[in-house]
């Protein structure tokens, strides 16, 4: 992204708005949606970078994040968040996979229209970010602990000055 600062700026501002602005979904919940979709897209960098941030917000360990990625239904996440993750999983396959049943279930468990909208947009956005990162073959550190350490810093600094190449 350092290569194209004119596209980096709207992308960073977009990430900041989606994941950090005031929202009835917590920052941790939104990072989890991003992490889950990035895992489904098999994007090593994004699932670990956002997993590290989610871990920081949720004050949990990496095995809990891994468990969510592997089988969120078996975790103690709220039923509403599980319903939103199901929608996010469908978005990852393709927009048309989202069903009326999934949306109604999320709504019955207390999700608002804005929360459903934001879940779909976060999931769709990570189908973009994941492809951008992997499609250009950017390098990603393999040591997962690095992302856990960076998660705290990213949570504190936000996305506005994020530089993929630093």
């Amino acid at each position: 992204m350092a290569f194209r600062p004119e596209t980096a700026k709207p992308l960073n501002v977009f990430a900041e708005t989606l994941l950090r602005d005031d929202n009835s979904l917590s920052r941790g919940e939104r990072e989890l949606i991003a992490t889950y979709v990035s895992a489904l897209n098999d994007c090593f960098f994004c699932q670990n970078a956002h997993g590290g941030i989610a871990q920081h917000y949720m004050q949990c360990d990496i095995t809990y994040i891994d468990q969510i990625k592997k089988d969120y239904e078996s975790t103690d996440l709220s039923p509403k968040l599980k319903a939103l993750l199901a929608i996010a999983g469908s978005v990852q396959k393709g927009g048309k996979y989202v069903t009326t049943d999934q949306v109604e279930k999320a709504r019955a468990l207390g999700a608002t229209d804005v929360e459903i909208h934001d879940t779909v947009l976060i999931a769709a956005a990570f189908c973009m970010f994941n492809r951008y990162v992997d499609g250009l073959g950017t390098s990603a550190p393999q040591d997962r602990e690095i992302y856990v350490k960076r998660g705290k810093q990213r949570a504190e600094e936000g996305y506005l000055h994020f530089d993929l190449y630093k």
Partner: protein
Amino acid sequence: MAHINVPEGVPGIRSLVMFRPESGKFLYELAQVLLRGESPLTEAERELIATYVSSRNDCMFCMSSHAAAARYLFKDNKQVVDIVLNDYQSAPISDKLKALLTIAGHVQQNGKAVTDDDIAQARKHGATDRDIHDTVLIAATFCMFNRYVDGLGSLTPTDPAAYEEMGKRLGEKGYALPAPALQN
């Protein structure tokens, strides 16, 4: 019926950004920078990449509206758009653009599906790093837009005339947030 309570009768992404202008304004800004901003690829070529990816994602709204914009921008050469959608290898376009469409098609599958050979082919036909970067990001961005539009079940017009009008607007004015969203 859309999955959420968006403005009635407004098609596609316009209804979604009117529902949520906070994120909508960045989506329009991104589309404008990517498809109309400075790039070694022409506006028509970039609309063609967007159309091709939307077609592969089976997103009728994005495919039809960007095909219309591409036809408008290709002017007398507008038949190229439908030939590309049918089989881009047989289209009267440059080998460089064909190689970039191959990359875009692989991005549509998944970022990892882009191979070193895809990149080498594009370079061989004269593509620069900027061409390749812009192709990958446009393709990735339409994997977002397509999912956003269909994932929320937004209204998809079936009358081709509706898209022709959109294509003309997008060709002339680019990507401007719908007026009702600006008032928020």
